[in-house]
């Protein structure tokens, strides 16, 4: 039964990845797909900045600019940041809790393929008439008006499909963390990243359904004659705004909490110190998640909800600053008294503090409703959320990729190149976005494709564009680094950084398919550190060595997702072409048919025998 550790051709490797249900390989898939979308979103950002470099520019005008702008936001949030976060979670969380896989490996694969086909579908719009052009928020009045192309239909259906994948991922991680922790791994011994994953997944569980409902309404209105957002028939576009932001605000925390988790790991590791105030960090994470659901309307202060609603949401929003502040100080005091090693991941972590604090404080400024009437939809807001998303999330993803690269791929990324990437990115980031605060205050609205001269915006925009190119250069160097490392990087040890604290550093790099030959016994926070401090090289096992049960690979997740991909094309065109409806139905049949197959064919997985495990362990130790 064992197909492990056999030499494989390219075709076999591809087939392996198409059918894998192993969380580590799914992490690779998320990283690659998310990385590709990140580069696309980045190119879109560059196009935007080139157009805005000087007044009255005609590089990218009107509708096309709006398409690029919409796709930049949509891609970065849904197709780059989210999957990259999922890549980190998949790569690390099961190992950090001492599990052999996630709770539902099949669903895990299905989640990835749904995301992937959703993203692919959305990007097909570029070649089929035009991309969505109503902004990533796609406010209903404009997105219903935008009927010249099918762009918005691609947006609605594509994100719908990838949203299903995200919800599955969320439930999967929740169950994994609830049920599959190793013996001794109590909730209050879980690494901070696991906690972040837990709360994030809960947010996904509750935040995505409203978005799904919003998409259903939009789909009904655009494709099936619904009237949810059509004022002439009694519809109400404000409903879209609410549904979108009931999702949209938690989404910010869905992205940033894992970032907090990643940094918590890195701060502790490279300060060689236990995370300061662990329990208050956990408390703050949960509190942020909770409060995150009560503040969505601060995105709608100028919609005209009235002063009572505005005041309530303003105060609720300010409250979030408190747990976030707790976190910042806890990180500072984790480093306090530590022995700080400035590796590449630590560079990002250290740079994250001032950058994110900037984004955080402008967030509180935005929360002051009356003043927000000025900030809202201006470049001030653009600056604010880029400080949060880039200074928080992207920094974390870059840090996390460098930090866990050896664990994921078995080779250390080059540190010198890593630091060059960091400095270019850091400088470029502040150059691009700091000045935008002032552009906004000087009256520049967001999402404009051009501006007239003599309004005082020329210098700021030029500086901002220059900064964007620094970030692009950083990305290029990162890619070079990845290529060099892949070709001739050094093999990483299990504890690749030498200062690892959590369980993932106790297994070889990359880990064997079953993660742990024997489920470990966890004796406290930072389980591996505890063992190391007692002079042990290995974890204390919680079970005797035995046969290991593994799930079977399956091609069905790919097919199920592909079916929806086909169906989405059918429904998009069902009003224009007679083939639309049949194609839509065929797509759904493919999906439901393969789901039926999945439930009819029993899949009990297979066992890796004890002897094989021993052999693999020996090999792993030698390498």
């Amino acid at each position: 039964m064992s197909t492990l550790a056999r030499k494989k051709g390219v075709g076999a490797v591809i087939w392996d990845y198409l059918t894998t249900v192993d969380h580590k390989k799914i992490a690779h898939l998320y990283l690659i797909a998310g990385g590709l979308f990140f580069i696309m979103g980045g190119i879109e950002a560059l196009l935007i900045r080139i157009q805005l470099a000087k007044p009255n520019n005609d590089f990218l005008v009107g509708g096309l600019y709006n398409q690029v702008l919409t796709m930049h936001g949509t891609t970065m949030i849904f197709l780059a940041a989210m999957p990259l976060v999922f890549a980190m979670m998949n790569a690390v969380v099961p190992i950090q809790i001492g599990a052999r896989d996630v709770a539902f490996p099949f669903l895990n694969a299905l989640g990835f393929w749904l995301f992937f086909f959703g993203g692919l579908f959305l990007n097909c719009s570029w070649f089929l008439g035009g991309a969505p052009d109503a902004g990533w928020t796609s406010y209903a009045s404009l997105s219903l008006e935008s009927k010249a192309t099918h762009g918005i239909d691609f947006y609605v259906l594509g994100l719908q499909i990838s949203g299903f994948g995200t919800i599955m991922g969320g439930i999967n991680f929740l169950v994994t963390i609830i049920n599959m922790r190793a013996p001794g791994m109590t909730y209050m011994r879980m690494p901070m990243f696991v906690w972040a994953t837990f709360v994030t997944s809960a947010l996904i569980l509750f935040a995505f359904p409203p978005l799904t409902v919003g998409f259903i309404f939009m789909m009904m209105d655009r494709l099936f004659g619904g009237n949810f957002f059509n004022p002439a028939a009694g519809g109400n576009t404000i409903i879209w705004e609410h549904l979108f932001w009931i999702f949209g605000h938690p989404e910010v925390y869905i992205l940033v909490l894992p970032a907090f988790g990643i940094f918590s790991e890195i701060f502790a590791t490279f300060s060689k110190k236990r995370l300061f105030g662990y329990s208050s960090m956990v408390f703050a994470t949960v509190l942020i998640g909770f409060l995150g659901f009560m503040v969505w309307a601060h995105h709608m202060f100028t919609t005209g909800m009235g002063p009572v609603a505005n005041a309530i949401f303003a105060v609720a929003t300010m409250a979030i600053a408190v747990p976030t502040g707790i976190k910042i100080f806890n990180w500072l005091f984790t480093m306090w008294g530590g022995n700080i090693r400035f590796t590449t991941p630590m560079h990002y972590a250290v740079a994250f503090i001032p950058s994110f604090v900037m984004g955080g404080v402008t967030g509180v400024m935005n929360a002051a409703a009356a003043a927000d009437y000025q900030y809202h939809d201006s470049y001030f807001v653009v600056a604010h959320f880029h400080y949060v998303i880039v200074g928080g999330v992207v920094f974390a993803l870059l840090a996390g990729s460098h930090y866990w690269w050896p664990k994921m791929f078995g080779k250390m990324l080059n540190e010198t190149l890593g630091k060059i990437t960091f400095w270019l990115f850091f400088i470029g980031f502040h150059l691009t976005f700091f000045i935008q605060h002032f552009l906004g205050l000087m009256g520049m609205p967001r999402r404009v494709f051009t501006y007239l001269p003599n309004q005082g915006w020329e210098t700021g925009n030029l500086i901002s564009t220059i900064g964007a190119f620094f970030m692009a250069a950083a990305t290029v160097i990162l890619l070079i680094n990845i290529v060099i490392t892949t070709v001739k990087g050094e093999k990483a040890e299990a504890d690749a950084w030498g200062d690892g604290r959590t369980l993932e550093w106790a297994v070889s790099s990359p880990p064997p398919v079953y993660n742990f030959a024997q489920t470990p016994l966890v004796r406290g926070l930072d389980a591996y550190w505890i063992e190391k401090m007692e002079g042990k090289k290995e974890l204390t096992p919680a079970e005797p060595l035995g046969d290991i049960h593994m799930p079977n690979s399956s091609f069905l997740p790919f097919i199920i997702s592909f079916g929806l991909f086909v169906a989405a094309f059918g429904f998009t065109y069902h009003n224009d072409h007679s083939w639309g409806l049949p194609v839509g139905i065929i797509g759904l049949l493919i999906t439901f048919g393969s789901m039926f197959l999945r439930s009819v064919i029993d899949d009990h997985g297979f066992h890796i025998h004890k002897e094989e495990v021993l052999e693999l362990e020996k090999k792993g130790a030698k390498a």
Partner: protein
Amino acid sequence: MVNQTNSGNERVDLAYRRRKNAEEMKHQVISFVLMILLTLISFAAVGYDEFSHWFSIPFILLLAVVQVAFQLYYFMHMSHKGHELPALFIYAGVFVAFLTVWAFVTVVWW
């Protein structure tokens, strides 16, 4: 995954278990009867024109909540041991649900 069942201690006396199950079933039939009754009352409350809807709407909503509690706690066994996390997440869902509905009936007024 290796089998982590701890069915050993659950293999208690069969007769005892059957008796317990039967007892529980009795509770469930009772709650079913109550649910039917509540449904009848709310249909009747609406059918009866004398009540102003300031009374009848909160009243039937209350009856609905009671019914749902029966469903959750008896039919779906949320009263049983080992349902702490399900309860936590259902209540979290109810919390978000409440916020959503509350916002839509207060802020979306035009």
